[in-house]
């Protein structure tokens, strides 16, 4: 679900790309291609378009490794941001070609933005929460099995799953037309 890499890896990768090391480009692709492709695919819902975005994004990163500022966040989140930007631009180009009404395009952009925020939230949430979600969602364990796997109580496993989803649900907020109910408030 995520590609955790220590900041040191990010900085080393940036240096290697900057000095034109083709092997580093291959490693970068191996680590992030599925991220880039899946983010692009979620926005554009088309394999060929996602392929094109993947080519553009890696091309941009390879040509502009210095545009990455490690102080601003991880290499992963930078690449996700570039992908989102390219994908949304592409979506708007579809609009100018008449492929969808402006309303449909804006709805897609909103969904894409929520998905991008969700991706960011998942990767930046505390590791214990992410681990619990990963066990329950991707490995399909129930919370008791997840608790055993994580070595925590069942209460704690339930707590982590709920908190993890609560954090994730904030990705929807700014993409809704009406403000969401505040946390813990009645409807």
């Amino acid at each position, binding site marked *: 679900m995520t590609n955790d890499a220590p900041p040191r890896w990010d900085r080393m990768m940036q240096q290697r790309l900057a000095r034109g090391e083709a092997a580093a480009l291959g490693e970068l692709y191996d680590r992030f291609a599925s991220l880039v492709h899946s983010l692009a695919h979620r926005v554009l819902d088309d394999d060929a378009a996602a392929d094109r975005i993947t080519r553009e994004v890696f091309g941009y990163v390879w040509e502009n490794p210095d545009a990455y500022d490690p102080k601003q966040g991880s290499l992963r989140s930078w690449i996700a941001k570039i992908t989102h930007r390219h994908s949304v631009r592409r979506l708007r180009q579809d609009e100018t070609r008449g492929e969808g009404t402006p309303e449909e395009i804006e709805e897609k952009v909103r969904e894409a933005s929520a998905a991008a925020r*969700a991706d960011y939230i998942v990767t930046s949430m505390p590791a214990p929460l992410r681990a619990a979600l990963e066990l329950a969602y991707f490995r399909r364990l129930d919370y008791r099995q997840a608790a055993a796997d994580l070595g925590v109580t069942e209460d704690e496993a339930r707590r982590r799953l709920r908190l993890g989803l609560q954090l994730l649900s904030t990705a929807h907020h700014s993409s809704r037309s009406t403000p969401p109910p505040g946390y813990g408030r009645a409807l």
Partner: protein
Amino acid sequence: MNERCGPGPWEPDDGPWDHDQGGTGPGARDSRSDGRDGGTPGDGTRASPGPAQPPRIPTPRAAPEDGDRWPYPTQPSAPAPDTMRPQQAQEPHAQKPPPQEPPSADPRAEAPAPSGPRSHKVLTSLLGAWALSACSAEETLEVEAHLTECAACAEEAVRLRDAVGLLHPEENLDLDPMLRSRVLEGCLGRRPARIPVPDWAAPYDAEAARLDALLRDMGEAEWRAPVSLRWFEGRGAARRDTTVAGVIGHLMTVDGLVAASLGLADPLPGGEEGSPTARTEAYWAAEPAVAAGEPGPAAELRTAWRDQGHSLLRTVSFAGRGAAGLDVSYGRFTLPLRDSFLDRAFECWVHAGDIADAVDYPYDPPSSAHLNRMIDLAARLLPGALAQRRRAGLASPARGPVLVGAPGRTLHLEIEGSGGGDWYIALDSPAALGTPAESVAHVALDGVEFCRLAAGHIAPEEAAAGQDGDREAIRDVLFAAASLSRL
């Protein structure tokens, strides 16, 4: 190079194990069941909650008591902060006694329990697990009954179910394996590499990336899928049973010979002098959990194998052209580094195919340019392998002496299809020159079929070859091709 190749890189060597023990040792399947792999949604072990329903009955209480909906003080073992819920973090309730407090201390406990024996507190705590379909059937029913009565929980339930929709399996995406080369080519066209990957290392780069993509798509249980490794030895087929994880261990351990020759860390401590087979057996014996395909160790192994591959590519990129001729020792023979990378690319593809067969995934052959290089390596190794078999009495005798570098009896190997071409194999000595003029036999074979033969995956007698000319020469060359295989 034939002179120093000895038995050839795909030649079987004297492994210390018995081929008949396929069902035991590290190859034996791990029958341990931890109960994790059988659970699929909807199989009855985990109820699938329906969409949350809006509350049908107006809730009797307005549920402003956030503390009640958030009943668990952060435990010491859980560093997860509650910073996303600032209003709650400031609540004095969080400092209240832990949940063990008697129910009567909770003002809401005085109301009759809405349904079932579980309290509102517990049901609320189940919402995350419920949204993820990660609680028992009984709990699911109780939560859903509760949602019809509690507006606050119903609102949260909808929100959490929506959030689940935002989770997505980034890693399971089925990327077109050929996209990698297109993307990298596109990049290098825009900005040429100052430190390129040597072209003889490109097939290894591509094949390792393809295998890694296959591994990424696999489920955990598939690490233990049984794989039968097959090769040709002496007069007939040999096999060794292992798991998918065992195969990756094998690849990593033999790649380790190349790593050691470049001064990188050997993944098999103290094993640097062994043959590929001896090293593999030593690794399987030392890492039984990996050999059995336990998911945790297998995932670490995948990372270790991949990291080593990246290090190899990086190292030869910096070493430059001069490194291409360095010797890599395989125990009883050596190969120059550039051929060693081709050999590793070939094995990576062949074993990726073995794994794909074992887990029933499709797997394509390499690109035709890479396939051509692999076929070329095998063709160059054939005269040496033939001489080796001749010395062992497994091939017909040479027809008289041949001067070093002089043309001698030749077999014309015509490879058709992807990666194909014409190769002229010297029959009587590795030192002789194969030439069209001296051809005594002609064999035509599909490229992938020839590779399957050289990998020991089809018997020489069964290689679907168009044949013409000296039957004995053809037979000897097909058997020599099969004998290039090893574990």
